[in-house]
């Protein structure tokens, strides 16, 4: 059966955001790309369960998230302290995830509990609504909201920011430059 052109377009269109999500989940570009590839294979094998007219991107995010979760559980049995391991893997590959300028932020993000990290990314970066994020994570909307709030508070603590000035001169300069564009 040939792939429907609109399906193909929708899948490829979701790939950049799926990669960004995968990288922020596992902290490693190569593993993230493998995760995306496995997600696409699973999605195409189960394309009949996709309801046309619904959000392809949200469907793919759900598959990726569930797949990552089951892999994560498997690995957890093998490696103790997976979150700590994740933080270490970030430190050893600072150049892999975008630019060095996000290093401090990335390291703080890596220290969040996984539930909070994924909720924050889905709502704060992937652009999903609280309802969509709740569907993707298979939990209540209120749960997502409280995870996002806790994630934000914890991030601010980890980065020692109490006010916008605490972001440092670089950030301020960048904001001024950006506003001058």
């Amino acid at each position, binding site marked *: 059966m040939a792939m429907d052109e609109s399906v*193909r377009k929708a899948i490829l269109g979701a790939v950049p955001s799926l990669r960004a999500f995968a990288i*922020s989940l596992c902290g490693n570009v190569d593993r993230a790309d493998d995760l995306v590839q496995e997600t696409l294979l699973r999605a195409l094998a189960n394309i009949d369960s996709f309801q046309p007219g619904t959000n392809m991107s949200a469907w793919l995010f759900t598959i990726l998230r569930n797949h990552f979760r089951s892999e994560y559980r498997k690995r957890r049995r093998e490696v103790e302290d997976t979150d700590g391991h994740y933080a270490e893997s970030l430190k050893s590959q600072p150049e892999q995830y975008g630019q060095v300028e996000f290093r401090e932020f990335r390291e703080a993000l890596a220290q969040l509990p996984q539930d909070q990290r994924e909720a924050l990314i889905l709502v704060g970066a992937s652009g999903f609504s609280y309802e969509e994020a709740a569907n993707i994570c298979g939990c209540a909307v209120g749960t997502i909201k409280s995870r996002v709030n806790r994630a934000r508070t914890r991030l601010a603590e980890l980065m020692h920011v*109490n*006010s916008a000035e605490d972001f440092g001169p670089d950030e301020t300069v960048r904001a001024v430059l950006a506003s001058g564009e």
Partner: protein
Amino acid sequence: MSERKPVEQENTMEAAATRKKANAKPAKLGRDVQARLGQQLRSMYDDVVNQGVPDRFNDLLNRLDNDGNKDGQ
């Protein structure tokens, strides 16, 4: 001679209570801080999004599509 119990223990408990109070979390993050954290999160994420679709994923879909066509014949 009677032994006197030091009253230090009470003081210590009081000190602990004061410390606990001082460590209480601020109720809410300022809007400006939230906005800046959000900005950093999005720039980091968009950095990856802007890389577009790596060849391996185009190749993967092409390969699957070709396999699919062969199967159909």
